[in-house]
């Protein structure tokens, strides 16, 4: 019931904040209407990073406590993080085309890092799907998640150096929206979008976690079912041969 109320509140908050971001706040002087994309791009990026952080922490927690509930949290983080990250990149490209003139800017550390982040966690999810035993899956996914998490800062630095040592063109970066010199109206709009998106994220995380628990119950049930079926079959295989001997 509580989750349902949270979901309804999150939906209303996103609807309200989006309506204001679309129609209430005036367009940006330089970037025009395209700047409104930032109101969904920045919150999604933040939630992508938050999700993967949760996945890494839950993985470390699993290795420590060996509790499958923590693995469910890790799974929820990775799936929801992939969703928000993919959306971040898509929204970023939609913004980049009119403002930068290109969809893809190789020397922007944020874009390149985010693309690799997506690849890392798509691999993580694929790996999970192809492992059966729940505890083995949880332990290995945890270490894969940890390696992915330690790789991210190195990726970011390397791309930053790529640009820095290259002396490439200085480009307008998305976080100019969070610049303190930006008019307070823009900042308030962005913050309300951040808050409402985070509520949606929380609701999704809880739901995905619950779903993972149900999936495991079914898996467990299936395993028990197969076990009893195998036992019954072996008993049945013994019985008719006895009968055959008697008839002979």
């Amino acid at each position, binding site marked *: 019931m509580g989750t349902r109320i949270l979901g309804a509140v999150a939906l209303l908050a996103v609807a309200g904040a989006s309506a204001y971001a679309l129609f209430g706040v005036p367009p940006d002087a330089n970037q025009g209407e395209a700047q409104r994309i930032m109101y969904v791009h920045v919150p999604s990026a933040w939630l992508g990073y938050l999700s993967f952080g949760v996945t890494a922490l839950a993985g470390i927690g699993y290795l420590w406590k060996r509790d499958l509930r923590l693995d469910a949290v890790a799974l929820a983080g990775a799936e929801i993080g992939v969703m928000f990250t993919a959306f971040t990149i898509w929204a970023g490209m939609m913004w980049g085309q009119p403002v930068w003139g290109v969809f893809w800017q190789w020397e922007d550390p944020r874009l390149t890092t985010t693309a*690799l982040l997506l690849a*890392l966690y798509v*691999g993580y999810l694929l790996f999970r799907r192809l*492992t059966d035993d729940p505890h*083995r899956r949880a*332990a290995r996914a945890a*270490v894969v998640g940890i*390696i992915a998490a330690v790789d991210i800062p190195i990726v970011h630095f*390397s*791309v930053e150096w790529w640009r820095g040592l290259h002396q490439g063109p200085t480009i307008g970066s998305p976080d100019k929206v969070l610049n303190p010199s930006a008019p307070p109206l823009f900042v308030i709009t962005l913050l309300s979008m951040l808050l409402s998106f985070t509520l949606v994220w929380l609701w999704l995380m809880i739901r995905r976690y619950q779903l993972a628990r149900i999936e495991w119950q079914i898996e467990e049930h299936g395993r028990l079912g197969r076990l009893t079926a195998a036992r019954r079959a072996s008993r049945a295989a013994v019985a008719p041969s006895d009968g055959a001997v008697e008839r002979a």
Partner: protein
Amino acid sequence: MNSLLADAAVAWQVARKDALSELRGRYLAGSTLFFAALVLLLFGFALGPDSRRLAEAAPGLLWLAIVFGSLLTVARLHQLEAEDGALDELARYPVERHAIFLGKALAAMAALVVLGGVLLPVVAILYGIDLAGAWLALLAALLLGAAGLAAVGTFYAGVTVRMQAREVLLPLLMLPVVAPLLLAAVKATTVALAGDPFGELSAWLQLLAVFDVVMIVAGAVTYGHLLEE
């Protein structure tokens, strides 16, 4: 101190064993080297006959060939053992797991250094570049790059070795992680070949070294969880 020495001895024995099976099986000479050289040849076809363009792209193509070769190398070093159940035996020995990881990574690194050492002259011949002036810097980049690829590769080969879909999963998991290594190694090679006009070389080598240290530590700490069954 004594336990450190014992770990080093274990790592050395594991590396020696892997290197021996690699040498006797002639996998490196037989398939990996040939495959990587073939990749370099195909890059030539893909980029056309313009020799200046090939020379410009040479560092990137060289490192891509080494990265592809590393996928084969690390997969095989685990696969050989897993097939005979030897990996389970190894896991049952009362030795530190990180020593096993370091040994396997060392063997993989040695194989990759040989691979790179053979590919460098191949690149020089095929793409028409002069290696003579930069060999020390190239050797440093090769050693650091091979160490990082070996560490990450050994870790992911351990993750995927018992899985049906390992041929697909190993590259999918490993390639995004080694992206910063690829970037730094290619830049180091490029500036080394250009004679390091802006003094950037040491920065890229340092980045490679940081990547190596982080991945060796992370792999050594977590590898034990992969051997548990």
